[in-house]
């Protein structure tokens, strides 16, 4: 069974601070996605990365896929209260995995205080 370990589990910061959350595994993945989930809603896709070493930017969010395609990070610059939510990484492939089944980590619950 492939596992995605996310850290930290909880993060509470002040508006304007920078932060990085991590998603790690011992498996190699064909693709990795980051979703954000707000209370009472389903997760919404932020980004998909497929190439080792790939870096993608989405406004104040920077996503990186590790060279070996086993890990990923999400960096937020100048966090805002609207960034509050549960950040989930999810991946396909990996040892024992399939190309269609999306496996999720447990998430990082981010709170940005005004």
């Amino acid at each position, binding site marked *: 069974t492939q596992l995605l370990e996310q850290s930290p589990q909880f993060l509470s910061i002040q508006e304007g601070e920078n932060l990085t959350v991590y998603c790690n595994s011992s498996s190699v993945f064909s*693709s990795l*996605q980051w979703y954000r989930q707000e209370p009472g809603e*389903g997760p919404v896709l932020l980004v998909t990365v497929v190439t080792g070493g790939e870096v993608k930017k989405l406004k104040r969010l920077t996503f990186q896929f590790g060279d070996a395609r086993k890990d990923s990070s999400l960096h937020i610059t100048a966090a805002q209260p609207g960034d509050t939510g549960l950040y989930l990484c999810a991946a*396909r492939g990996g040892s024992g995995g*399939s190309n*269609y*089944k*999306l496996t*999720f980590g447990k998430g990082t*619950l981010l709170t940005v205080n005004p």
Partner: protein
Amino acid sequence: GAGVSQSPSNKVTEKGKDVELRCDPISGHTALYWYRQRLGQGLEFLIYFQGNSAPDKSGLPSDRFSAERTGESVSTLTIQRTQQEDSAVYLCASSLYSGGAGELFFGEGSRLTVL
């Protein structure tokens, strides 16, 4: 176009009763997934449907859980003889493509509480 629709949004039931949860995917999406999310946890894969292919039921936690999908339309997840540990949010998602880097579109979930 409408997104993924789930019903009921909330369900409270007594231990031992059966419940049925419904998912209406985005039109044209061939892939449909059910996940379970316990309080403060990530998403746990339950079952996957792709067109008329045999579903991947490998994530169903026990034989009390079953799901059906008619063609590429509505899916129902049934939990028989509910237990308190079944309390969770059940999320349905659909996708245009079954693999690769396809995006999953989620509904808002059905929150199940078993008393």
